[in-house]
């Protein structure tokens, strides 16, 4: 059997079911609504595993599941050297969100990363500590800022309500996921012109193929044909 990991609830799950359904592979939750068990119709050899979207990258990397649907941002954040371990089979065209750097609208002098870097240098001199950027995407943000040559900042961890950290003075800027930018604006923040770190969308990934059986490989080949990937 090939294990296919799919987000266990919400719009991401429904959209994933729709995406597979439109390609002739029926996925559905089995049993009661509270149960995280799934069933596959119209295709043999696949077992549906319902998981939290955040756990799917790890399960793919460890080989516990063979295929998985999750955000491309989560894979890049959670798996070191993700592209040597996982393969993107198909971007799925939904669940789109951008990981961006945002600063207070009141910072009229800051429109670009170049400005952010200069402001960070001055901030450190004035306040005696590095400018704090709140995020839960530490790896992606750090690699981006390293490539862009931004200095004098520190990342502070924020697992939720990140937009509020500036107002609460636990951070000066944030790096977070947004689809329309509405929440950012409502919290007095704006996106830097060149502050797009990653444009994420739901993506079908294939995990490490090292220990796959011939049967599993054949199943994947058949699935790729049915899904027209």
């Amino acid at each position, binding site marked *: 059997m090939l294990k296919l990991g799919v987000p266990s609830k919400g719009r991401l799950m429904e959209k994933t079911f729709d995406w597979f359904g439109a390609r002739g592979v029926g996925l559905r939750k089995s049993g009661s609504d509270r149960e995280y068990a799934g069933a596959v119709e119209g295709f043999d050899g696949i077992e549906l595993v319902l998981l939290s979207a955040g756990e799917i990258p790890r399960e793919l990397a460890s080989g516990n599941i063979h295929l998985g649907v999750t955000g491309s941002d989560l894979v890049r954040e959670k798996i*070191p*050297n993700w592209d040597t371990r996982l393969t993107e089979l198909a971007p799925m065209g939904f669940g789109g969100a951008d990981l961006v750097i945002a600063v*207070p*609208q*009141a*910072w*009229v*002098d800051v*429109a*670009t990363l*170049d400005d952010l*870097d*200069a*402001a960070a*240098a*001055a*901030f450190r001199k*004035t*306040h005696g*500590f*590095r*400018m704090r950027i709140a995020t839960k995407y*530490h*790896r992606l943000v*750090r690699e981006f*800022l*390293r*490539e*862009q*040559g*931004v*200095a*004098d*900042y*520190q*990342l502070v961890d924020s697992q939720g309500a990140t937009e509020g950290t*500036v*107002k609460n*003075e636990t*951070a*000066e800027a944030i790096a977070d996921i947004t689809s329309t930018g509405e929440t950012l604006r409502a*919290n*007095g*923040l*704006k996106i830097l*012109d060149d502050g797009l770190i990653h444009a994420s969308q739901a993506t079908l990934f294939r995990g490490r193929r090292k220990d796959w059986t011939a049967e599993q490989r054949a199943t994947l080949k058949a699935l790729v044909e049915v899904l027209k990937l």
Partner: protein
Amino acid sequence: MPTSAATREEARRLRNLFAAKGALVIKADVLQPAETLLDLYGEDIRARSYLTSDPLRGEMVLRPDFTVPVVQMHMESYADPARYTYSGKVFRKQEHDETRANEYVQVGYEVFDGQNPAAADAEVFAAIAEGLSGLPVRAATGDIGILMAAVRGLRTTDDRKAALLRHIWRPQRFRALLKRFGSAAVPPARAALLAADDPFANAGPDIGLRARTEVAARIAALRADAAAPPIATEEIALIDAILGLRETAPNVLSALRDIVVDMPAIADAVKRLEARLAALGSRGVEVETLEFEGSYGRTSLEYYDGFVFGFYATDRPELPPVATGGRYDALTARLGQGRAVPAVGGVIRPDLALELL
């Protein structure tokens, strides 16, 4: 991974070699207070450091290297001159390459001596070279001090020089800044900001620690910058010439002497290089074939601000450098709260040295 007996023995041999040169054997705590250390090193090392918290001592870190604890120890002792050696593990997370060790032994030799920096540079380089003698390694050298002197000598505003100096270790941002300072064009968003009657007209709510006065101060700085003439093309070409140097040390010295004619500001730094090469020669280093790169050391730790060097396995390009070192005067100034002691040091990784046998 436990250190092999062979690595421990090689580490002891190296430490004894350095001790025989008059270095005091010192030890440092494995757990270090995180704040000072990580504030100096920045986000990159923070990301690669093993952080933990202690209920009484606050945030602690498994030492990512020995330099800061050694400098702190030295600053308390007031000995001058002083030589130290140590041997112990350092810890760094490997985010990209799982084949690289995340804990490994470093054996170091550090010299605090303000009397004759060129001699101290040569002493450290020669000691490290001696520790690696017989191994198939090649040395690469550079001098961050020359680039810093060139930036300080530019005919432009102090703010621009400070911005460039801050990014010596980030080649891409350095390049972008140099390009912007070399052009009269102002980016459109900035031009609009500077042209506005009231730059705060559409500003949102004042939130966060960065106050409106700080924003206003930066706008004033941007205004001053927009009024400053661009850095001359000829001066930028000289910086490029320095960064592009990649030759044997004597040829580089000769090329730098040509550059001094147009950029007298680097004359002292070039004299220091000359004195260092002479000192290296008198210590038996083959200066004629020594490699020198104008941009060497720019992607390493930020605290090196003069002579920099590394030893690389000749036939194993995939290995990290077997030894690295350099001068870190600015670090001692920052840690010494105004009291600076010129310092230069180097470390060898005995585990890598053994792989080359």
